[in-house]
């Protein structure tokens, strides 16, 4: 016999299912009347300091089909790398957004401010990135990943450095398609599979 560890196991995840929108984004499915104010509609308010950017993409399944039912949440700091609630954080950046693949095209768009770099506990700097969490029918536990930016200095980023197969790093890097415009596609499975995280 040993002493007991006073720990509880984490509750098991279950799929968000095909109707996740009625709970998390009711206006997406025409149910906007239910709440006065839907949360996660924008990560920024007008006047946020920094470069305003738009990231467009799709979530593809293992057959190459752009999923119509994926729901994504994003979390990021302001242009200086400070998260909402931290000292000195930009009051116009709440940092959280919910967005969904369009029911017709399967494309999503995130309009936000470009984030600043964030330090690790040991002081090493991480390149600017946005954290994502993806849920949908057939995804049994939400998938974590990150968006980095092709026009930032990513070579010293500690997370990207841990990716053994170097071509896979590209799956986490948004490609610039115009001024303030980026493309970021997510592939759940197979060729070009996105690096998903366990953090």
């Amino acid at each position, binding site marked *: 016999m040993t002493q007991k560890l*006073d*720990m*509880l*196991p*984490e*509750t*098991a*995840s*279950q*799929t*968000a299912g095909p*109707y*996740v929108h*009625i*709970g*998390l984004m*009711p206006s997406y*499915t025409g*149910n906007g*009347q*239910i*709440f*006065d*104010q839907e*949360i996660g509609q924008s990560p920024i308010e007008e006047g946020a300091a920094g470069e305003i950017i738009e990231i467009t993409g799709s979530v593809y*399944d*293992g057959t190459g*089909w752009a*999923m119509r*039912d994926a729901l994504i*949440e994003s*979390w990021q*700091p302001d242009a200086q790398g400070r998260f*909402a609630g931290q000292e000195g954080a930009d009051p116009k950046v709440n940092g*959280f957004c919910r967005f969904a693949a369009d029911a017709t095209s399967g494309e999503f768009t995130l309009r936000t401010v470009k984030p600043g770099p*964030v*330090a*690790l*506990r040991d002081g090493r700097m*991480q390149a600017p990135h946005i*954290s994502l*969490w993806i*849920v949908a*029918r*057939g995804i*049994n*536990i*939400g*998938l974590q990943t*990150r968006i980095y930016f092709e026009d930032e200095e990513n070579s010293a980023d500690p*997370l990207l450095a841990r*990716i053994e197969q170097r071509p896979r790093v590209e799956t986490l890097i948004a490609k610039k398609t115009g001024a303030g415009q980026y493309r970021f596609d997510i592939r*759940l*499975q197979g060729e070009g*599979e996105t*690096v*998903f*995280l*366990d*953090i």
Partner: protein
Amino acid sequence: MLDNGPLIPRNRALHPIPYDPDYKTTVARSPYLPLLSMDSSASEETGPTFGHGQLGALDNNLILNWTRGAAPAIGERIVMHGRVLDERGRGVPHTLVEIWQANAGGRYRHKKDGYLAPLDPNFGGAGRTLTDADGNYQFLTIRPGAYPWPNRGNDWRPMHIHISVFGHSFAQRLITQMYFEGDPLIPLCPIAATIKNRAQLDRLVAPLDMANSKPLDYLAYKFDIVLRGRRQSMFENKPEGM
């Protein structure tokens, strides 16, 4: 000094397996390659916060919130209540809990749901609330119906309520489903069966809670939720390798 350290790494064996051919949609939607593991950073340890100012008075009352109090939804009246805790057993205060569900006939108010059962004009099927200072939450709703779904030849979902919880860190984010004690469809459900650890599935089954049921009004079901905790040590601030 005691640091509120990195998140405790997830024990994936407690969670459903991502690829499970009995739940057909997982086959093309589960990654083939291993996840990349790393200690959490501020990107995962911080997270959005929400305040009472963003919520309405009826947001946690699914019987009345769709009609803004004008007419109650049809169904067996229930209270769903419980506590949000972390792995160390501490209540998670002031965190957002959101739920969504089918109506009493097993139909969702979603444009993609075409089940035979009719919509209830007085039921929207979504609610949200903030936990109190001890991590407690509650919803008043109706018991959702079971319903068939296209998977194998004749699959039915047991009665369930979807539940989404934030915690205080973005990487604590969790969506799960609450099932009801005694439902004979639970052992037949391929989605419930994606959880291979039997004790973990049992923890998703809410017991009938007569002590919190109100005579001549509603039954209560208790559902506690445990989120990831934080590592705590005096050594977290030291550089790698000390």
